[in-house]
Structure formats: C-alpha cells, structure tokens
C-alpha cells in the first residue's frame, strides 16, 4: 500500500467521522438554532476532506477538477443555506420582524 493510499484513506476516515458528528449533532441538539451549528460540519468541513483525499489519490487530473467544482458549490451554498434557515426559523417563531417594524415586504400573515 502506497503512502498516498494511506493518506487518502485517513482523510476519508476523518470525513466520515465529521459527518457522523454532524448527523448526531443534528439529531441530538434541542432546538433548531443549536442544530444549525452541526449542519455546517457536513456542508463545510467534510467536503474539503473528501476533496483533499481525491487530490492526494489522483493528483491534478480531470477527476480532481470536477471533484473540486462540485465540492466548491457545496461549500459555497452551505453558509447561504445556513443563514436562510436561521432566518426562516426566526420568521416562523416570531413573525416577520420587518413587518413588525412597519416596513419591508409582506410576510406569511400578509399573503394569507
């Protein structure tokens, strides 16, 4: 077994452990805002580890480029979705704060 195989397998094992931590965190934590912290593990940390594993295994090739492209989308959309989720949770709990302040676009109450 080559050194690069060992390194790639170690990175993959670490990615699996990170995903396990993420899913357990989402399952165990109490409310939505606490769960949200653990979503970031699976959408930010694990993809980078998988991308590094493919890079170590294959070097610079077509596979690596497409892997990095796919995981770049996952890493970029993670924070956007996390923010949008927190916003949706806040609006569902307390109503649209901009409406309460008398400006902004109509929330659920307005559209009926």
């Amino acid at each position, binding site marked *: 077994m080559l050194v690069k*195989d060992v390194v*790639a*397998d170690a990175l*993959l*094992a670490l*990615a*699996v452990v990170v*995903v*396990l931590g*993420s*899913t*357990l965190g*989402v*399952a165990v934590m109490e409310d*939505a805002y606490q*769960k*949200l912290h*653990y*979503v970031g593990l*699976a*959408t930010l940390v*694990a*993809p980078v580890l*998988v991308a590094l*594993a*493919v890079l170590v*295994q*294959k070097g610079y090739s*077509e*596979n690596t480029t*497409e*892997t990095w*492209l*796919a*995981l*770049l*989308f*996952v890493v*970029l*959309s*993670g924070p*956007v*979705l996390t923010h*949008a*989720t927190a*916003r*949706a*949770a806040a*609006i*569902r709990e307390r109503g*649209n704060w901009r409406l309460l302040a008398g400006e902004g676009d109509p*929330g*659920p109450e307005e*559209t009926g």
Partner: protein
Amino acid sequence: MTGFVAASIAMLACTLPLGAVLWRGKLIEAVMALQVVGAVVVMVLIMLSEGFGRPGEFELAVVVAVLLLGSGLVFLRALERWL
C-alpha cells in the same frame, strides 16, 4: 473494495440518525437534516465515481451540488411564507 467505496458506504450509514429528525422533528429541523443529507449525497457520488474509476459520473455530483442551493432556498422561502 477501495477506501473510497468503503468511506461512501460508511458515510451513507452515518445519515441514519437524520431519519429520526426527518420523522419526528419540526419542519425547520427536517429542512436542516435535508441539507446535511444533500451534502452527503454529493460526497458519496464523488467517492463512488472515484472508487469505481468512472470519471464520467463526476458530472452527476456537480449537478446535484448546484441544485442543492436552489432547492434549499426554495424550501426555506416556502417555509417562511406558506408552510
């Protein structure tokens, strides 16, 4: 079986706890679980393509990754306004 195939099987197995969230959790928590599963699916598709040595299948992972953002935002917008 290469490390990539084993890791993809293990990563899929890791998503089992999210089944409880999808089943028993509130709607907003179910959307969070969906986001985690979406990211895991992209990684699994990449690892399987790499593990089985089929470069043509990387495009599927890229398409799923692009659609993750759009579908997530549509879900959340619907949650804010109508659901």
